C-alpha cells in the first residue's frame, strides 16, 4: 500500500522533473516544478514528516514558485532558442548518464534490508518546535538575519536606476530633481 503510493507519486515527481527539461517555455517549466514540489510533499507525508510537508506546500510551492511565476510574467519570457550543441558533451555525457543509471539500478536491486516504515518517526509540530527553539536556536536566529539581508538586497537590486539627464538639458535643470 505504501509502496504503491510511493511509486505513484515518485513517477509523478520524475515526470515533472523531466518535463521541466523538455519544455521550451519557462512558464511550463515553472508549472512542472510546482507539480514536483506537491508530489514531494506527499512523499514527505509517507516518511512521517507532516510539518515539513505542510511547510513545503505553503513556503516552497505557495510562495517561492509564485515569485518565479511573477518574474516570468513581468519579464515576458518567451520560448527558448536552441543552443549550439557540442560533440564532446555528447561523447562524454551519454556514457556517464548510462553509468549513473547502472549505479542506481544496482542500488535498487541490492538494497539493504532496512525499510522505512510509515509512522516510525513522527515529525509533529510540537516536537519540531521544541527542538527548533532549544537545540537549534542559533541557526534559527542566523537564518532570520539572513532573510532580512535578502529582503534588503532584493529591494536594492530590483529598484529602478535613477535617471541622470545628459547633454544640453542638464544645464537647464533647476536643481529640484536629484
Amino acid at each position, binding site marked *: 500500500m*505504501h*509502496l504503491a503510493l*510511493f511509486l505513484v507519486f*515518485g513517477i509523478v*515527481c*520524475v515526470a515533472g*522533473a523531466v518535463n*521541466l*527539461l523538455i519544455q521550451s517555455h*519557462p512558464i511550463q517549466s515553472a508549472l512542472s*516544478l510546482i507539480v*514536483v*514540489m506537491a508530489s*514531494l510533499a506527499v*512523499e*514527505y507525508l*509517507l*516518511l*512521517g*514528516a507532516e*510539518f*515539513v510537508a505542510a*511547510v*513545503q506546500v505553503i513556503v*516552497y510551492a505557495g*510562495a*517561492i514558485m509564485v515569485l*518565479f511565476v511573477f*518574474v*516570468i510574467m513581468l*519579464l515576458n*519570457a518567451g520560448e*527558448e532558442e536552441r*543552443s549550439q550543441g557540442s560533440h564532446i558533451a555528447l561523447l562524454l555525457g551519454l556514457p556517464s548518464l548510462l553509468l*549513473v543509471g547502472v549505479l*542506481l539500478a544496482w*542500488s*535498487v536491486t541490492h*538494497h*539493504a534490508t*532496512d*525499510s*522505512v516504515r*510509515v509512522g*516510525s*518517526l513522527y*515529525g509533529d509540530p510540537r*516536537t519540531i518546535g521544541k*527542538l*527548533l527553539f532549544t*537545540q537549534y536556536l542559533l*541557526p534559527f536566529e542566523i*537564518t532570520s538575519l*539572513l*532573510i532580512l539581508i*535578502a529582503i534588503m*538586497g532584493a529591494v536594492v*537590486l*530590483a529598484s529602478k*536606476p535613477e535617471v541622470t539627464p545628459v547633454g544640453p538639458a542638464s544645464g537647464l535643470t533647476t536643481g529640484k530633481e536629484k
Partner: protein
Amino acid sequence: MVPLSYYLVLSAILFACGVLGFLLKRNIITIFMSIELMLNGVNLSFVAFASQWHALSGQIFVFFVMVVAAAEAAVGLAIIISVYRTRDTLNVDRVDLLKL
C-alpha cells in the same frame, strides 16, 4: 514497506535532472528553477535519512534549506531582473561581455 534506497534513488534522479537542466538550458529563469529542483532532491534525502535513523534533526535541517532557498530565490530573481533591464535578453549565451 518502502526500502530506504528507493527514496535515495528518487532523490538522485531529481538531483540529476536538476544538474541536467542547469547545464543544458539557456534561459536564466529555467536554470534557476533547476537549482531549486536540486535543492528539493536533497531535501528528500534529508527527510528519508531522518526517518531511518530516528533523528528529527534531518527534518529541521530541511527547514533551514528551505529558508536559504527562499532567500536565494529572492535575491537571484532580483539579479535576473537587473540583468534583463541592462542587457534586454534572458539568454545566458548573450550575456558574455563584461562591458555592454
